[in-house]
């Protein structure tokens, strides 16, 4: 029987991007999940959709959205993440809880290339999101959707385990 964490999770990233150019083509995008390349795409659409599987042996899962292939000839290429959905859950403000790492040329000693909460990639680089495992429960917590129970209506693991033991020993 499949374990909960083995069920594939669907991610949708909604984009805006620069137009097609005869010389430069479309912006190029790569998705990494826990250092594994999920796919490479031409950003010629509004949504990129892909599936991931959690690795619960890791404490943290890492999603990276790369913009690559831009050079001095392709100056007007850009791509911007507008929204993200995981299993159709709108990540809302969690989308902004990200770090951008720009690829800085060796002669630029001024900037660190690290930008927080910036989803616009006008240069080569990537935006990174980190999630604690299990991923969906982390999102629930960060969205602030965990419901506090009211007095007299509680549900606890302690009682569950006690009752489980009772019925499985019958």
């Amino acid at each position, binding site marked *: 029987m499949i374990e*909960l964490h083995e*069920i594939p999770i669907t991610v949708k990233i909604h984009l805006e991007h620069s137009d097609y150019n005869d010389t430069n083509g479309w912006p190029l995008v790569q998705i990494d999940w826990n250092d594994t390349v999920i796919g490479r795409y031409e950003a010629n659409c509004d949504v990129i959709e892909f599936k991931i599987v959690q690795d619960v042996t890791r404490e943290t899962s890492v999603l990276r959205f790369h913009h690559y292939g831009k050079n001095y000839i392709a100056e007007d290429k850009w791509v911007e993440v507008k929204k993200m959905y*995981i*299993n*159709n*859950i*709108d990540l809302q403000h969690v989308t902004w809880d990200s770090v951008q790492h720009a690829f800085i040329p060796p002669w630029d000693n001024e900037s660190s290339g690290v930008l927080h909460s910036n989803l616009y990639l006008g240069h080569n680089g990537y935006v990174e999101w980190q999630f604690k495992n299990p991923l*969906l*429960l982390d*999102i*629930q917590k960060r*969205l602030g*959707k*965990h*419901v*506090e*129970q*009211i*007095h*007299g*209506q*509680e*549900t*606890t*693991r302690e*009682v*569950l385990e006690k*009752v*489980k033991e*009772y*019925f*499985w020993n*019958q």
Partner: protein
Amino acid sequence: MDILIINVPSVSLVYPAAAPSLLKGVCEQAGFTASVADFNLQLFDALDGTTQTSVSNYFTVRSSIGNEDQKIINDWYDSCVNQILEINPKFLGISVFTFECQRATEELAQRLKGLYTGKIIIGGAGLSTNGIASEKNDFGTRLVEEKLVDFFIRGEGEHALVEILRKNSSTVSGLNNDDYVQITNLDDIAFPNYDDVIDLPYRYTSNVEKQLPITSSRGCVRSCTFCDIHAFWKKYTFRSGANVAEEMIHQYNKYGVTNFFFTDSLINGSIKSFRELYKTLNQYYADNNLGDKFFTWGGQYIVRTPTQLNADDFAGAARSGMNGLAMGIESLSENVRDHMKKGFSNADLDFTLEQIRLNGMNCYFLIIIGYPTETVEDFQETLESFTKYQGYAIDGTIFGVNLGGTLSIDEGTPLHLNSVDLGLDFTSDSGAGTLFGLDWVDQQNKDLTLLERCRRRVSTQELLMNLGYTVWNGDHQLTRLMRSYDRITRNSYHS
């Protein structure tokens, strides 16, 4: 004072009880003076959590109690009697909201005997111990026979109470008998008058300053096999949406209340009335330069097909402030739901959930585990569907699930009435008399033993907790389930 209407333990403290204030309004409309006293709140308001549980159990499950808690209860009874004697109304009306109010009603009546010279009237769903639809009410009948009370009112109280006050009691259906007749025109009934209770310290949920109950219908449009509502309310009656909106606006103007909880079995039984309600509210907001969702309102809701309630309906209802929909989903297996006669498909549920999410609303699932026809495959389908719907729990669209205490067979339900044809029988030879409660087995689905039902109930809760659903009232339900199982296997369940 013509009548004092009270409610007694044990009922919820989350907002004022609906019936006493409604009946006050009705009596006043007929020209009588009426007052409401919430004796339930008076008792529980001063108690801490542990004492509250212990005292509540005294009334609800008739548990024994320590001397200290008994003194609290005795003092409270003395206070109730003193208040009644001081007001000295011609009539005392006691709202017996559920069978869990029976003990307090009886003990208070005993203490009033010989002291209070007026007439005592009792009414409410708690007149019957084995379900609202019991053919004969046992509790009311007994208290009248024992001369502890003068009248019981079976069914609705609005007309009957006024006729008693008018001393026309011989003409009233449902008065000291079970032959009640339903009121057909609910729009003519007065609005509730909450003057006596509006400023009392109810335990409103954290995000609400004040909340009032409201009732737009009685009965149900469905006839689910496990339910007794349609047996008690023979006909589904409902108010017009405009009349309901008028009451909400009236209560807002009078008390400043903007949050309402519908006590109906379903708020969308009449689609016409439902549409009229949200459209009237939206028009009121527009006419008075109030924002969308100026009021918030919710209650029990049935899943409809997209042709019955479409995307525009969801958007309009959300704009008017509908939220917090408690949906009797019962099972996520279509086979099981079909047998229950729930009347909606998986596709209808998918549509409904997505509309609730898209319009920024939330909902609550009511579930029954271990329905007689539930096979292993049906149960597995329910678990898989909860996994499929996990996203709705994560983003708060489903804010809670109530898994109940597995299927209980109540008197008056189709399962109860057709138990022989359906192959339902006692789990052992212990059952004498009528089949009810958890002590049943389906001869056509023998794998679904009582133990198997209990295990499925536990497994479902475990999965839901792992998936991030908020399971409500699980501790109480599981503990009670364990006790019931123990009593059934020891042959003491029916005693």
